[in-house]
């Protein structure tokens, strides 16, 4: 059974600009955002059988809804994020409190190292990938690798629209991978190709990558992804996954989608 952390979008909105998707002039339809979030939660709980832990939303923290950036959870240890931008640094204490309150052993990284949680660290059971340059600092990965005895392959993110690894890279349960190669440099592309065989790798077309096809949630053989990604869906079905498209365009205004709205707890 999969447990995921989510945070209701009571205070979600665009109050600052810290990625190319965010525009203060681009107002969020709050009622619509709430309905989209409840639809996502419904699919996760009913269709995928996931157990959801709900955080209490906090006023003036519009991005607390993106729980993928709370940190990463490995067993009973939670590594709490250190956000690059001051706008989101105010979330750190709330995420930390939640982890402590739920019995996790909290680990923090050095104060001068940025690390944005499961937004930039994801992978397969045996080894992980770490996105760096846009938000997280590459120097955090050797620390986590040593702590968790897990290989972490750093990948430089070279396109600011794909500012977190989970916006362009999605490892799936069967060892398959959705990714958008142009978000990486040639070294990163070569490192990915070296690890994941051709037939298990889907190069997501640009138009679907820009709809955040890679920002998908995979639970067992179910994949929840944004609507409007037919090629990605077709490939997933051929690989034996059941797909669940959800309309999340209100959250795309902030640069996030299904995966950004959840954090895998264990």
């Amino acid at each position, binding site marked *: 059974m999969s447990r995921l952390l989510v945070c209701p979008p009571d205070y979600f909105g665009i109050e600052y600009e810290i990625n190319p998707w965010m525009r203060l002039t681009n107002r969020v339809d709050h009622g619509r955002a709430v309905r989209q979030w409840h639809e996502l939660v419904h699919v996760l709980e009913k269709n995928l059988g996931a157990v959801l832990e709900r955080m209490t939303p906090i006023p003036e923290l519009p991005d607390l809804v993106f729980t993928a950036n709370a940190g990463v959870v490995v067993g009973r240890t939670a590594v709490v994020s250190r956000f690059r931008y001051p706008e989101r640094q105010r979330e750190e204490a709330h995420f930390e409190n939640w982890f402590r309150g739920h019995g996790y052993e909290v680990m923090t990284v050095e104060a001068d190292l940025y690390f944005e949680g499961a937004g930039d660290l994801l992978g397969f059971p*045996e*080894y992980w990938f770490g996105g*760096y*340059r846009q938000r997280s600092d*590459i*120097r955090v*990965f*050797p620390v986590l*690798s*040593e702590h968790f*005895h*897990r*290989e*972490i*392959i*750093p*990948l*430089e993110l070279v396109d600011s629209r794909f500012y977190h690894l989970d916006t362009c890279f999605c490892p799936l349960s069967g060892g398959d991978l959705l990714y958008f190669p142009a978000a990486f*440099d040639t*070294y*990163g592309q*070569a*490192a990915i190709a*070296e*690890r994941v065989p051709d037939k298990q790798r889907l190069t997501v077309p640009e138009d679907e990558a820009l709809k955040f096809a890679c920002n998908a949630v995979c639970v067992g053989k179910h994949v929840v992804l944004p609507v409007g990604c037919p090629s990605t869906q077709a490939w997933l079905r051929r690989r034996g996954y059941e797909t669940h498209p959800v309309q999340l365009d209100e959250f795309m205004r902030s640069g996030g989608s299904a995966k950004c709205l959840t954090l895998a707890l264990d």
Partner: protein
Amino acid sequence: MNQYQESVYLQGHIIDSLVLAKVLDLILMMGGTFDLEDVHIGKTREEPSRARIRIQTGSRPLLDDILKAIQPHGASIEREANCRIDQAPADGVLPDGFYATTHLPTQIRLNGRWLDVDRIEMDLAIVVSETGSSAHAMPMGEVRRGDQIVIGREGVRVIPLQRPQERDVFGFMESQVSAERPHSHIIADIATRMRQLRERHRHGQTDSKVLLAGGPAIIHAGGREPLTWLIEQRFIHIVFCGNALAAHDMEADLFGTSLGYGLSAGRAVPHGHELHLRTINRIRSIGSIEAAVTSGMIKQGIMAACVKKGVPVVMSGTIRDDGPLPGVITDSVRAQSAMRALIPGVGLALLVASTLHSVATGNLLPATIPTVCVDVNPSVPTKLADRGSFQAVGLVMDAASFLSELARVLGRST
């Protein structure tokens, strides 16, 4: 020293991710070079790898640019300590634990920045200027009470010589000495260098001077005329020698003999053993070699050419000298210091037929200066080559043959 460097560490899963390859490519693409040091590859997939990379550039801004470009990829600058400094307790006395130099390019770290040590030479101490903005190598005897002397090894680094750009005999990065090696191509390469250096010297460029340190065997063996020609043609810009070379050179001019042997007939002339003493006495009576040449008493030869062409000559005395000639420095510490003062600007050193002057000069030279040692006794070039300079060439051959061939290749008609 046209070289700036910094060491950085890179660690983590840097091999499969190609992060190491990316960092090395970045360094090269930006115009730097690197040495990979202490590379440790993780034995399992989980075990991280680490590498220490020494980056070299031709300028400080380029080094800074490269460091800035590779830091986002995890390259962190090695945390290095500043060098430690102590005051000289008395004139001519170094503090305990003073750092003893090598003849290789050396830098010290002061206030977080690497600083070149000027006038590097082996077996000296490093003195830091009062303001801490410069440092140079200094002999023990010249140290004054209160001088800031580098102690210990922390914050001091010696930079290995780079392979020379030129693909000539100096570029092999080896210091072989063999009597069996053919000489002609080596002499041809030396001549090519000397031609280039003469051109550069004419244009007032740095490190363009050719230094010759020689012994009296040059005169006995018949090398006087080619050496005179080399000086007259401005291929040689500094001469180090002793009392004997100068005395026999002028004896040859005055009497046609060298240590009493007729240079042309090759026979001992009657009372010939007195002639070098008579030569020295005449020069002493006129006051100086320069006066002897300008008055016309000495017309030709090595000393005459040096005076006429303004080539500085340092004559260092020895314990068995006759006379000596005016200008011979009999205090060996003063002689060493006079020689040392002429080393900056030297781009090639020829050490010919003198154990004493060759070794003394060799000890004063930084390893970066190409050096040729010519002697019939293989132990002399071997001793010089053993100093560890990549650019030392030893030739086991007779001084006159060497100088004649060198002059011939450079255009002297025979």
